[in-house]
């Protein structure tokens, strides 16, 4: 016996699950893509754990960029965006890539330009929360950061960095304590 229809998602983002479930059951038509798109949008709007949507995970410049993917298991077609700037609804833009292009993956400013052609507003993804995170990071000598084999020592100093002639032992890389956790993840 099959346990379908079904919605399951990572983490305790239950409002997104519920929205997808409601959409999935709103009609007898197959609307799995709508369910996924609108379910994930809930998390974007709610800024789930500050790991989804605008106003979280600032980069070294204090900017939030967004990544999203939709993969259709019937057609093996997909749409994705990476490093999307200044557009909030990343999952919907990925849906547009899926449904309105023969490509799979658009990135950066040109993904934003694609989105704007379909009416997505261009707006800042920075919030007071993300700005404060960024300010705290700068005040903490830019720790943690993801540079290696550069000068000055990225474990103690902010950039700009230049190439270091002293290469770290890359065999140790695999056991370095992770910088990722339940509040900082892909």
């Amino acid at each position, binding site marked *: 016996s099959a346990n379908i229809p079904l919605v399951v998602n990572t983490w305790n983002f239950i409002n997104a699950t519920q929205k997808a479930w409601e959409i999935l059951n709103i009609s007898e038509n197959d609307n799995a893509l709508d369910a*996924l798109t609108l379910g994930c949008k809930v998390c974007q709007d709610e800024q789930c754990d500050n790991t989804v949507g605008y106003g979280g995970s600032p980069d*070294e410049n204090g900017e939030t960029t967004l990544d999203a993917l939709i993969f259709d298991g019937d057609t093996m077609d997909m749409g994705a965006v990476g490093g999307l700037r200044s557009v909030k609804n990343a999952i919907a833009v990925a849906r547009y890539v899926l449904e309105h292009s023969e490509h799979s993956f658009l990135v950066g400013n040109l993904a934003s330009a694609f989105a704007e052609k379909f009416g997505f507003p261009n707006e800042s993804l920075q919030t007071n929360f993300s700005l404060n995170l960024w300010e705290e990071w700068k005040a903490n000598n830019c720790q943690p950061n993801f540079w290696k084999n550069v000068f000055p020592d990225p474990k103690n100093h902010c950039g700009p960095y230049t190439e270091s002639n002293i290469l770290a032992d890359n065999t140790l890389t695999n056991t370095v304590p992770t910088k990722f956790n339940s509040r900082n993840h892909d």
Partner: protein
Amino acid sequence: TIGMIVISQSGHIVAGTSTNGATYKIPGRVGDSPIPGAGAYADSNYGAAAATGDGDIMMRFLPSFLAVEQLRLGASPEKAAKISLSRIIDKYPTFFGGIIVADKKGNIGAYCNGMEQFPFSVASADYPNSVIKYVNC
């Protein structure tokens, strides 16, 4: 990041992700989330998977693709999830991440590393009011 799997009544399976990525990333960095087979993957003939965690590591192992491939080879969702993440953990013992896997019948499995428990959310006929479930890492 949210990674989501949806299976419709007719068996149409889709998977996807949405994220703002790693905090304090070097500008231009993109993680695994938008990469097919890494952040998510689906094949309506077998099932789907979605992964979350350290995307710089995960994208090197395509855990979502591997999990669906394990379903194709006959593994249960639980075993597919474990095999998929174990491939990463073997090389990166401190890796942080989790994966959810669903087969085409709606059976669910999950696996994780680098945390005590990994929560995931489920809605189905048994749970029309969505519930949070946990797997111990």
